[in-house]
């Protein structure tokens, strides 16, 4: 069944917005603003038929969805100090200056929601912020219901030329417990029956949302699924250079060697069900999720399915030592989305939103160079952006 995505101009953005429990600031494109403690980025969307834009039941990727073009909702929360998650999770979006090249939001109107941590624990504060953010994103798109779209895209996969290779996407979603998981239809990835085959339109239409606060640069915020470059490119190539063979969602951070092996083989089995000749395997977050990806790559190759893996690197820029956390010889085709450890040049914003002090205690307005690692989604491993690393 076809899915339609209707685009509306950003001037439909409501001028007044109040959100309980959060401060709201609207930043216009190019303003010299730094946003800190960013949890998620979401594109305003709403469905004319009244179903939820980020559904927890039913199926996304059907009927029509409206999107507000050039607008992003950024949610920010500075967790209460004594209850900060284990990881350093500073997450920055610069809307101008050198850091703006590393995140895709500088050209957009940003609606920044700064949540107050309140008395509840981290998990409650995060859950409230996440749900409110999705609701606000839906509310902001409401004026599109009475407007004419500027453009309507239709997403539908016809049969395609039998001679073209069948290519699927294996998309990894983290689940390392509370504060470190993505959601599939509102359910944490680890409890969502993964690996599972989904229609690629579901992914673009709000089926996956983010609640994952590892290294900022390796996060996949919700908007990266809504605007997923990999899925969109595969749609665009369908019938030209390949036949797009759907998406498999799989979990990252399986917690034991046995589970990792089992999950890798199950993901490869799903790819076989798709009849895929080749798959692009994407990664979410770092460390042991890279082992999940490597085992999945191996399982696919052993099943006769060719693979290309997308990974970020974490290497000392002054070292020439090996750079990958894990590797199997079958991973002979890897795209690098950049080295997290490089520094981004110093920049002095005129205004800071989200919180004035970075988690390392420095003032956000006058911090020195900041590593790529701390920029939201900068080295995301779905290949959403153009950053790469090469040997020099």
């Amino acid at each position, binding site marked *: 069944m076809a899915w339609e995505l209707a685009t509306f101009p950003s001037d439909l953005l409501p001028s007044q917005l109040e959100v309980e429990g959060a401060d709201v600031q609207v930043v216009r494109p190019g303003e010299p603003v730094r946003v800190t403690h960013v949890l998620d980025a979401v594109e305003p969307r709403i469905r004319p038929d009244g179903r939820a834009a980020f559904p927890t039941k039913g199926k996304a990727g059907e009927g029509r969805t409206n999107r507000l073009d050039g607008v992003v909702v950024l949610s920010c929360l500075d967790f209460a100090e004594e209850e900060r998650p284990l990881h350093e999770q500073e997450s920055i979006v610069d809307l101008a200056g050198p850091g703006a090249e590393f995140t895709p939001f500088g050209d957009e109107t940003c609606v920044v929601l700064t949540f107050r941590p309140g008395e509840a624990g981290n998990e409650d504060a995060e859950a409230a912020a996440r749900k409110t953010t999705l609701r606000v994103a839906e509310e902001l798109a409401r004026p599109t219901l009475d407007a004419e779209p500027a453009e309507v895209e239709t997403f539908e996969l016809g049969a395609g030329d039998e001679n073209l290779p069948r290519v699927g996407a294996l998309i990894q979603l983290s689940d390392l417990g509370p504060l470190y998981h993505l959601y599939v239809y509102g359910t944490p990835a680890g409890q969502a029956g993964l690996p599972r085959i989904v229609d690629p339109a579901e992914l673009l239409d709000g089926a996956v949302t983010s609640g994952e606060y590892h290294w900022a640069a390796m996060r996949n915020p919700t908007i990266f699924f809504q605007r997923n470059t990999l899925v969109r490119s595969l749609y665009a190539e369908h019938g030209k250079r390949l036949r797009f063979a759907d998406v498999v969602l799989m979990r990252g951070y399986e917690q034991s060697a046995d589970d990792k092996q089992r999950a890798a083989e199950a993901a490869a089995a799903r790819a076989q069900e798709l009849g895929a000749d080749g798959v692009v395997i994407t990664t979410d977050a770092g460390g042991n999720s890279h082992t999940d990806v490597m085992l999945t790559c191996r399982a696919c190759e052993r099943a006769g399915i060719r693979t290309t893996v997308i990974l970020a690197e974490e290497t000392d820029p002054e070292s020439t030592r090996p750079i*990958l956390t894990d590797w199997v010889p079958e991973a002979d085709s890897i795209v690098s989305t950049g080295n997290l450890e490089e520094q981004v040049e110093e920049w002095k914003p005129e205004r800071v939103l989200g919180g004035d002090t970075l988690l390392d205690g420095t003032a956000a307005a006058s911090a020195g160079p900041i590593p790529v690692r701390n920029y939201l989604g900068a080295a995301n491993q779905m290949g959403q952006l153009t950053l790469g690393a090469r040997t020099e």
Partner: protein
Amino acid sequence: MKAVHYLNQFFAGLGGEDKAETPPVRLDGAVGPGRGLAAELEDVDIVATIACGDDYFAEHEDEALATLLAYLEEDPPDVLVAGPAFGSGRYGYACGTLVAAAAERGIASVAAMHPENPGVDAAGKAYVVPTAVNVAGMRDVLPRLARVASALAAGRELGTPDQGGYLPRGFRRNYFAEKTGAERAIDLLLAKLGGETRTEVGGGLDRVEPPAAVPDLSQALVALVTEAGCVPQGNPDRLPAVRAQGWFRYDLTGEETLSAARYESVHGGFDVTLANEDPNRLVPLDTARELEREGRIGRLHEAFYTTTGNGTPVVTSTRFGREIAGELREAGVGAVLLSGT
């Protein structure tokens, strides 16, 4: 600005293979290919030529290197140039080793040799300009070598290997590609399906060869080492959950077990809930004590060593390993139980 030029005995005019045992010497000004190089350098004079026999360097590397570095330190140049060594393995190795050592000491350094010369790997963070496989490439390489040397002497940026005319040194540097990572992945996958496999990241890991078996465990002093972030409750030394900069040693004297009341893991790379219910599963002190009582291991070392292995660059972990191994060796430890997470 001043350059010092390194040559082997042959190119320095000291003699051929029969003089390959010549120890290091220092000559004034440019010699041999140095004259052609000097003509191409911009605002840089070759003030001295230092030379060494290839065999001497290979057989007495430490002494040769010390003498050559001492020549450089007497009157530090703005740039050290070595070679061109072309395809000569011993000469290339000497050039690479010398420029690497000089670069470590803060002297801008460049060597020239064939890309497959083993000296390229020896050159470390110094620059290597590619040459033809034999001396027929001299005329071609001297202007290119001079350009890199002049830029280094003047402190100018060389740019990427392509722009700067040097071989990649192995540093991974960020850049903005024309296509998104997703589009690049599709291109790579379709190329692979078409029979042409390419990658943006070479694989390979540090392969650690398994050491020889411990001859007699019942006589061995055994130590417990971990990267599981296991520390005394409250983390008194503030071991970080990620990107540790060091490691800690905690005394085990009188401890029979790592009780949950007294130890915990602060590792930020895995869910520590289960581990913290029984820290022995991270550092198996309970079992090790049992083996000690049964006489299956000689004795347990008096302390365990711990760090957090999470987001740690390989170069940093290598340092931890070297430091911990040094202490253990000094203490007479003959075997280590290394628990990873």
